C-alpha cells in the first residue's frame, strides 16, 4: 500500500513533457554571401504536467508555432533537450517514440488535409505509418492508461479511464484491417462526425468539420500529448465554440494533455490551466491562467492583456489601454539584453546590458517571470 502510494506520488510529480533550454535557430540569407541566425526560439525551458492544458500566446512572429513544432521534433532543435515521459529525446528511435505518443493539430484545416484522400484514409494515415508497431499496440495502450490511472486523483475518473482502456484493447485485438476500420469509425464518433462520411473527400466538409477530421487524425495513435497550433483561428465564431468544447470533452474523456498555441487570449484563457507568454522567441511569463490575468507581472503581459477586445461594451470602454509604441523588432536583429526593452515603458539602463538578459525566475509559487524589474501585484497602472 505504502509502496503504491509512493509510486503514485512519483508519477504525479513527473511532468509528461519537460523542455530544457530549447533553441531553434534558422540560418537566413541577409546579404549575397552573408547568413545570419534567426533565433525563432531562444533558450526556452518549461514543463507540462499530465492532463493539463498549457496555453502559449504571443504576437505573430514571436516563435510560438516554432516552439510547438520544435518540441515535437518536426524541426531538429539547434540546442537544448526535450524529455518526454522522462525519456530524453535524442536518437531517431526516441523521436519515433515521441511521435507515437505526441501528435499535432494544424492551424489551417483547408491545407492540412490531402484533397485526394478519403476521410478514412486521412484519419488512418498515422496507423498505416506506424503499421510495424501494430503488434505492440495493446502494450502501448496499457502503458498509457496505467500512467493515467496512476495520476488520476478521482476514483471515478480512474474507472472511466479503465473502461476506455478496455474498449481500446478490445479493438486492438482485431486483425489490422478490421482494426483500422473500427478505429476510424470510433474516432469519427468521438469527434462528432457521423461514420457514414468516412468515404467522402475533404472538399465536401465545412471548416469546422475539417478541423474535427484533423483532431481525429491526431487521436488515431492514442497519443498522450497533443500540440494544437492555432486550431480554431481559421473558424467562424460559432464553429470555434463547438471545436473548443470538443477539445475539452476529449481531454475529460481520454486524459489528454494539450499544448494550445493561439493568439486569441480569451480563447486561451478559456481552455488553459497555465499560460506561457512569448515574446521574440523567449518565454517572458508563465503562470496559472487565472493568476496571469489577475496579476500579470511582466510589462509585456500587462500591455497584451489590456489590448484584448473584450466583447462587452461597458467594460471595453472602461478599460484603460496600455498602448505599446512601435512594432515587434525583427528577430534577426533582436535588441541586446531584455528583448522587450525597446517597447517597454519601464526600461532602465540595466535592461540593455548584454549580461542582464533576464531569465525565467519563479517570483511567486508557480509564477515565473523573465524581467529584471517585475511589476508588483496590483500595480498595473502604467
Amino acid at each position, binding site marked *: 500500500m505504502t509502496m503504491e502510494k509512493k509510486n503514485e506520488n512519483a508519477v504525479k510529480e513527473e511532468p509528461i513533457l519537460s523542455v530544457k533550454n530549447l533553441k531553434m535557430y534558422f540560418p537566413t540569407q541577409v546579404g549575397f554571401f552573408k547568413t545570419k541566425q534567426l533565433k525563432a526560439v531562444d533558450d526556452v525551458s518549461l514543463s507540462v504536467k499530465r492532463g493539463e492544458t498549457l496555453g502559449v500566446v504571443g504576437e505573430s512572429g514571436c516563435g510560438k508555432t516554432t516552439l510547438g513544432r520544435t518540441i515535437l521534433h518536426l524541426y531538429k532543435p539547434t540546442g537544448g533537450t526535450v524529455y518526454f515521459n522522462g525519456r530524453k529525446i535524442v536518437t531517431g528511435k526516441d523521436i519515433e517514440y515521441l511521435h507515437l505518443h505526441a501528435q499535432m493539430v494544424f492551424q489551417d484545416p483547408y491545407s492540412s488535409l490531402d484533397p485526394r484522400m478519403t476521410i478514412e484514409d486521412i484519419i488512418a494515415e498515422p496507423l498505416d505509418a506506424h503499421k510495424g508497431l501494430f503488434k505492440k499496440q495493446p502494450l502501448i495502450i496499457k502503458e498509457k492508461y496505467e500512467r493515467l490511472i496512476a495520476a488520476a486523483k478521482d476514483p471515478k475518473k480512474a474507472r472511466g479511464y479503465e473502461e476506455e482502456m478496455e474498449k481500446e484493447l478490445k479493438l486492438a485485438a482485431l486483425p489490422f484491417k478490421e482494426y483500422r476500420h473500427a478505429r476510424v469509425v470510433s474516432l469519427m464518433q468521438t469527434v462528432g462526425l457521423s461514420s457514414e462520411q468516412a468515404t467522402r473527400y475533404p472538399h465536401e466538409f*465545412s471548416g469546422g468539420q475539417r478541423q474535427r477530421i484533423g483532431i481525429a487524425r491526431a487521436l488515431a495513435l492514442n497519443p498522450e500529448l497533443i500540440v494544437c497550433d492555432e486550431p480554431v483561428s481559421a473558424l467562424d465564431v460559432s464553429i470555434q*465554440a463547438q471545436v*473548443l468544447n470538443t477539445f475539452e470533452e476529449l481531454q475529460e474523456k481520454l486524459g489528454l494533455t494539450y499544448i494550445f498555441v493561439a493568439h486569441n487570449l480569451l480563447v486561451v484563457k478559456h481552455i488553459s490551466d497555465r499560460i506561457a507568454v512569448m515574446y521574440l522567441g523567449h518565454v517572458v511569463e508563465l503562470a496559472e491562467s487565472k493568476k496571469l490575468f489577475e496579476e500579470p507581472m511582466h510589462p509585456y503581459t500587462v500591455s497584451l492583456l489590456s489590448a484584448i477586445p*473584450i466583447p*462587452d461594451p461597458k467594460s471595453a470602454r472602461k478599460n484603460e489601454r496600455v498602448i505599446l509604441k512601435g512594432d*515587434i523588432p525583427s528577430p534577426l536583429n533582436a535588441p541586446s539584453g531584455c528583448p522587450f526593452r525597446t517597447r517597454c515603458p519601464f526600461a532602465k539602463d540595466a535592461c540593455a546590458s548584454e549580461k542582464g538578459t533576464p531569465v525565467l525566475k519563479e517570483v511567486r509559487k508557480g509564477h515565473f517571470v523573465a524581467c529584471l524589474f517585475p511589476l508588483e501585484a496590483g500595480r498595473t497602472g502604467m
Partner: protein
Amino acid sequence: MENEHLLVVSNLHTSFDVPAGEVRSVAGISFALEKGKILGIVGESGSGKSVTAASLMQILSSSGHILAGSSVVFEGEELVGMSEKELRTIRGGKIAMIFQDPMTALNPVFTIGRQMEEAMLLHKKSRVDILVEPQVRKLRDDETALARKLVIRKSIPLDDPHFAKKTEASLTEEKALAALIEMDKADLEAAKKAAAATAEYEKKIASDQYRYQWKKLSFSFKNALRGALTEKLQESARYANEKQSALRNEDKRLKEKETLTLAAKKCEDEKRWSELLKPLLEEAATKDLPPEKRAHLKAEILSLDRKQTALVEADEAAYAKARLEAKALYKSALVELKKAHKSRLQDMRSKRWETISKAWSALKESRDDFKASFGVTRQSAKKRAVEMLTLVGVNEPRKRMKQYPFEFSGGMLQRVMIAMALLSDPDLLIADEPTTALDVTIQAQILELIRSIQKKLGMGVIIITHDLGVVAQICDEVEVMYAGRIVERGSVNEIFYNPKHEYTKGLLSSIPGEDAQKGKKLHPIEGNPVDVFALPKGCSFAPRCERCMEVCLSLYPKERKVGEAHHSSCFAAAVDDVVSGRLSKEDFVAFVNEGFPIDGGHVKAAKPSAFGRLIKLAKAKMSQKGKEGQ
C-alpha cells in the same frame, strides 16, 4: 428627414452569377447612418457583410450586380445607377474604404508616397474650388431639394381632396427655395471672388515666405562657409600647438629618465662595486701573501671587474631601450592627436552640413507651400500625405514615403491604408475587417486611431468585422447579418445586453468573455453556417435555432421594432414579448401574418450554356436512335 442622414440604404439586393445559378448574397437590407456615428456590421463568413460594403462602393466583381429596386442614397445622391464617371468622383473622395489585407491592397511596384499622391491627384481641384466647396455644396443641396419638391408636387393625384391646398403650399415652398437658390448663387459668386483674393493673398504670402527662405539659406550658407574657414584655421593652429607640447613633453620625460633613474642606478652600481672591491684590494696590499693566494685574489678581482662592466653595459642598454620606448610613445601620442584632429574636423563639417541641410529642407517646404497655393499639385499632395502619415503615427513620414510596401510591417501598412483613406477628408469611411490581419496590440492601436480621427473629423464610419470584441470597443450602432439579411440592429448596448434574436444570443454565448476560465463550458450554435445555395423557406437561422417553431420553418419574420432604436426579425423574441406583456396578442398575430416565405432559396436555375444545349441535343438524338433500333 433624409438630409440628416449621411447614408440611407433601402432594400439593397446584390446577387452573383455563378455556374450553379444566381446567388443573392445581400437580400434586401435597409439601414441608415447618421453623421459622426460608427456603425458595426457583424456576421459570420458568407453572411454578406463584405458584399454589402462592396455594393455601397459599387466595386463588385464582374459577376455581381445590384438588382433593380435597390437604393443607396449618399448625401442626398442616389448611387445606384450612377455612371462610372460620376462614381469615380465619389469613390476615394467622399467615400473612402480601408481594405482587409493591406499587403494585397497596395501596389508592390510603386512607393507608398506615389500611391498616396495618386489618390489625391485623381481628385484634383484648384485652390479656389477647394475654398468655395461649402457654397457649392449648399447650392447643390438646395437645388436637389427643389427638384424633389417639384417631383412631389407633380405626383399629387388630381382627385386628392386637398389638391389645391397642397399645390399652393408646395408652390410657396418652391418659391422660397428658388429665392434661396438665387441667394446661394450670389453667395457662390461672392465666395469665388473672395476665394480668388484669398488664393492670391496665400500665393503672395507663400512666395514671400519662399523668398525669405532663399535669403535665409544663402545667408546661412555664406555664414557657414565663413565660419568654416575660421574654424579650420583655429583647428589647425590648435593641432600644431598640441603637437609642439607633445614633443616638449617627450623631451622632458626622456631627460628625467636619463638624469634621475639611470644616473642613480649607475651611481649605485659603482658604489656597490667599490664596496665589494675594497676588502679584496686591501688584502692584496698585504705583502706576505702566498703566491697561489695572490693569483686567486687577482682572478677574483678581475671577475668582479668583468661583472661590473657587464652591469654598466646593461644599464646603458636599458637606457637605449627606454629611449626607444619613449619615442614610440611619442609617436603613438602623435597618432592619437591626429585622430582627434580629424574627428574634430569631421564634426565641424557635419555640423555645418546640418545647418545647411536644415535651411535647405525649410526652403523646400516653403517652395511646396508656394506651389500648393495654386491648388492640388504633386507638391501639395505630398505635403498632405506627410501630414496624414504623421496623424496616423508613422515615424519619419518623408523618408517612409520613398519606401515600397514590402519595407513596412503589417501594422504600419494598415496605418498607411488608413492615412490613404483619410487623405481626401471623406464623409464616410468604410472599413472592411480593418484589424483582422493584425496582432492584438497593433489592433488596439489602430482602433484607437480610427476612433480619435473619427471624433476629430466628424465623419461616419462603417466597420465590418466578425469580432464582437472590436464592435464592443468602438461602435455606436450594430447590425447583425445572417444569410444576406440584417436579423437584428440597434445600439451597441441594446445588442450586447438585451439581444432580441436567437442568432445574436448564440453568437454572444459562443465567445469566451472576460470571465472565461477553464471548465466553464461555452454554449455554441449547433450546425454549420448557412449554405446560400440552399436557403430554407422560412427563417434562414431556423435549422440551427434552439427555439425553432413551426412558423419559423415556413415564414421569414418581418423586421419589428423591439425597443428604442432596436429592431429584430425573430418570432421567438416576439413570443417572449407576448409573455412579458410588451406585445399584445393581436399585434403578435399581425406580426406573424406579415411574415413572408423566401422563394426556393435565392438560387435560380441557370440558363444552360451552348455546350450544355448541344450535349442535351446529342443525348436526345441518341435515345431516339436507340428507340428506333428497337
